[in-house]
């Protein structure tokens, strides 16, 4: 069996900026990313959606690269760029032909040093974000299901439970002072990691990082709101009306063990047993065998990318003639099976092979046409959350050591009603019916 070993160089600059470089000269392309340790969870109360709105503002202009220049400079170098807001991090990333590496480092350093935006930029991006919410949530069947529906039902700490895309009233209330204060608080070098992956010579990436970023002053350590949840003692349920879709839906979320524990490793393989595609027990039982559901999928989304409470979520769209009770009973039966007896060695071996294979694909996979997004994301999360980018080469071992009894153990301990939340999306009367002419 071939083992993957990715060469990695890393350092921390005097201003606290962490730097991770993974040289690979196969193609003349380099992917660069900056991850700031700030996500939805830490945005201020009364400013729901702000972390994401702020991410948009980071493309609106910096000291030496006014609005449109940032995008134009990347695109015209033959590159792509994007950013995304997550629960615990916000990232900005670019893939460019390697002859544009200096330029991209300069651009990222410029906007880390000084954001330069005005009221018109903010109005413009507030409008853009509202259309983003409409196209992804408000005007789509099952929009926001379940990622926006579950948290307010499952969690009690505002950090975990609020609307991450933002209430429109909160988006409207955000002003330039909020933008600058958020920038000053969280967008400091000592709260970030810079990643350079691909066509850069060994040693060169660290030197370039120092050249462009070392004069940016560190800030005070950013405040950290504790996202811990009070102990849950009862099953939690909620209902949301489905405005467009024709099928009743439900999502069941179980709280999962803390990252990088033996229970977490076992939970990941339990997740694979339940949600691993068409061989997974949920799809097999509900769609293929009992034929109750039209869609049944889910799992622990982006398992390495969290640094706070999160859930394993199953998402089910079931046939209208099957009742909610019957559907949930079929789901519960699949869970009880995992608790009743340990899985066979054969099944566990299959799960481990698939887990390893999926992990390699994550490392190699790109996003939006940008190669090495997956490797970048894992290196960033291992650096910011675990202070150890080298985990990327060793983290598989914990999953490969899991035993059948450990999977049964976490099924019994975590897959209990008082550790879960359920949201039902019920179609409004008349959805999908023919319009009277």
């Amino acid at each position: 069996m071939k083992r993957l070993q990715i060469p990695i160089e890393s350092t921390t600059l005097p201003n606290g900026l962490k730097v991770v470089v993974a040289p690979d000269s196969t193609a003349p392309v380099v992917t660069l990313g900056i991850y700031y340790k700030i996500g939805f969870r830490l945005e201020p109360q009364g400013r729901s959606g702000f972390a994401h709105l702020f991410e948009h503002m980071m493309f609106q202009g910096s000291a030496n690269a006014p609005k449109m220049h940032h995008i134009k400079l990347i695109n015209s170098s033959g590159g792509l760029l994007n950013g995304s807001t997550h629960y615990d991090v916000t990232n900005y990333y670019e893939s460019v032909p390697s002859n544009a590496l200096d330029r991209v480092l300069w651009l990222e350093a410029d906007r880390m040093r000084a954001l330069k935006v005005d009221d018109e930029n903010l109005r413009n991006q507030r409008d853009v974000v509202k259309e983003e919410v409409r196209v992804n949530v408000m005007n789509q069947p099952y929009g926001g299901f379940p990622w926006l529906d579950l948290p307010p039902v499952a969690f009690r700490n505002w950090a975990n439970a609020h609307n991450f895309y933002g209430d429109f009233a909160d988006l409207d209330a955000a002003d330039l002072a909020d933008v600058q204060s958020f920038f000053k608080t969280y967008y400091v070098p000592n709260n970030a990691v810079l990643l350079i992956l691909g066509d850069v010579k060994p040693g060169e990436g660290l030197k370039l990082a120092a050249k462009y970023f070392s004069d940016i002053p560190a800030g005070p350590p950013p405040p950290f709101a504790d996202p811990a949840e009070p102990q849950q003692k009862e099953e939690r349920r909620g209902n949301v009306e489905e405005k467009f879709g024709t099928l009743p839906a439900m999502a069941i979320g179980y709280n999962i063990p803390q990252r990088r524990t033996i229970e977490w490793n076992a939970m990941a393989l339990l997740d694979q047993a339940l949600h691993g595609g068409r061989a997974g027990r949920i799809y097999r039982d509900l769609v293929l065998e009992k034929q109750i559901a039209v869609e049944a999928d889910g799992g622990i989304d982006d398992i390495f990318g969290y640094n706070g409470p999160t859930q394993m979520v199953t998402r089910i769209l079931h046939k209208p003639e099957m009742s909610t009770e019957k559907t949930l009973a079929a789901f519960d039966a699949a869970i009880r099976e995992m608790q009743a007896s340990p899985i066979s060695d054969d099944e566990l071996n299959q799960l481990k092979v698939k887990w390893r294979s999926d992990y390699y694909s994550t490392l190699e996979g790109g996003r939006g046409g940008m190669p090495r997004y997956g490797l970048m994301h894992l290196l960033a999360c291992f650096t910011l959350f675990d202070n150890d980018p080298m985990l990327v080469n060793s983290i598989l071992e914990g999953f490969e050591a899991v035993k059948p009894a450990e999977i049964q153990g976490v099924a019994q301990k975590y897959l209990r009603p008082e550790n879960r939340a359920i949201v039902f999306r019920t179609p409004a009367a008349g959805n999908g019916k023919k319009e009277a002419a």
Partner: protein
Amino acid sequence: MPPIAATTAEMNSVPGLTAERAVTWPKVTKSRLANGLEIVLAESHAIPKFHGQLSFRSGNAAAIHRGVGLAEMTSTVLRTGTKNRTSRQIEEDLRGLGADLSSSAGADTSAIGFAGLSELAEPLLSLVNALAREASFPEPEFEREQRQKLEEVKLERTQPGFLAGERLRKVLFGSHPYAQISPSEQQVAAYKREDLLQTYRDFYTPENALLVMVGDFEPSTMLKTIGKVFGNWSGKKPATLNAPEPTQPRGRQVYLVHVPGAVQCQILAGCPSITRKSPDWVPLALTNSLYGGAFNSRLVMNIREDKGYTYSPRSGVNPMRQHGYFSISAAVRNDVVAASLTEIFYELDKLRSLPVPEPELADAANYLSGIFSMGLATQSGLLSQLATVALNELPDDYLETYRDKVRALKPADLLTTARKYLDSANMQIVLVGDRAQIEPQAQLFADPKIFDAQGTSLT
């Protein structure tokens, strides 16, 4: 060594581009088995895995006489049983091989896509072989998938993007099979297992097939494995059907799909265009990139970054094997539908009237050639490019010469291309939204033909 910081002057000005490194083209091995199976292999050693695709040069368009979407249904039921495996065994075998597999059909192609660990390549290829040759289409599985599909086709009629695409394709292609992107409930109910089997026997043959694999393997060894697995397969190329010519709609028309309660309007406008085989393909790709194909493009800068009408405007050329079409899409807030269309046409007409300034052209050419190289940097990206070249029968040096062709284009070429293909005067406009909110704005462009989500005319 202490870090070397940049000087203030360096900090205040954009660094130039350093010398470009040449692209090292991945080594591509081409071969053909005696039974006609065409093979394209490329090495990529970033991870100990490989990606593959077994494609057949017949899709939904070639099966339309048996039913709309019948090739897609055939590909769906295909994975539910073979001579020696039940549906459950197939899925568990795949998991044990660390593999992902998909089977699907588009307008022109049916394909089994797969990815797995290099150390388990032969057993995965054997499973793909069984699906391509020994699928048994078990009756209960067919009936289950048919019931499943009935729910799916109801569901897709609640998605604005689907409704817009469906209407535009009907308008642009008329009686050509490309007009039908999805079956109705009645058409799904009329599917017969025997028709699936016949489609399978006709389409899934080595003479009709292309196998592309990219990954961590040694090509000559892989070629031997492929010969061992697929060598004794046989089967002829299916007869080709003659399809009617698409409609050439004249004049701007507006089609409104009424979705009560929609809080946004999905705009999709389009006109007939070309296939990848056309000599105008590269000039049109660059023209599109300037118009609305990149973040930095004119349309995105106008209606997103300047006016804030929409989150994700874009334009694209959609090539199929026989015909293509150009399209522009944007989901905009209800009160700016007319304003958005005005800007969409303003930017089209500007490209048709004025030559693109040289620096803007150079930027766009850099962009298109840059992202093209990036698309080859993952196993799945390279696979997709190699399959596109082979399935469209493009020249062998297509990938290698693409960037030079892009960079050779001049403003006059783009002006000619825009005038020929960005057919502003004959653009067909589809609007999906709440009639009460958007019909008066639609009226400003043409008297709209109005439909409900089921396709029933409301005018």
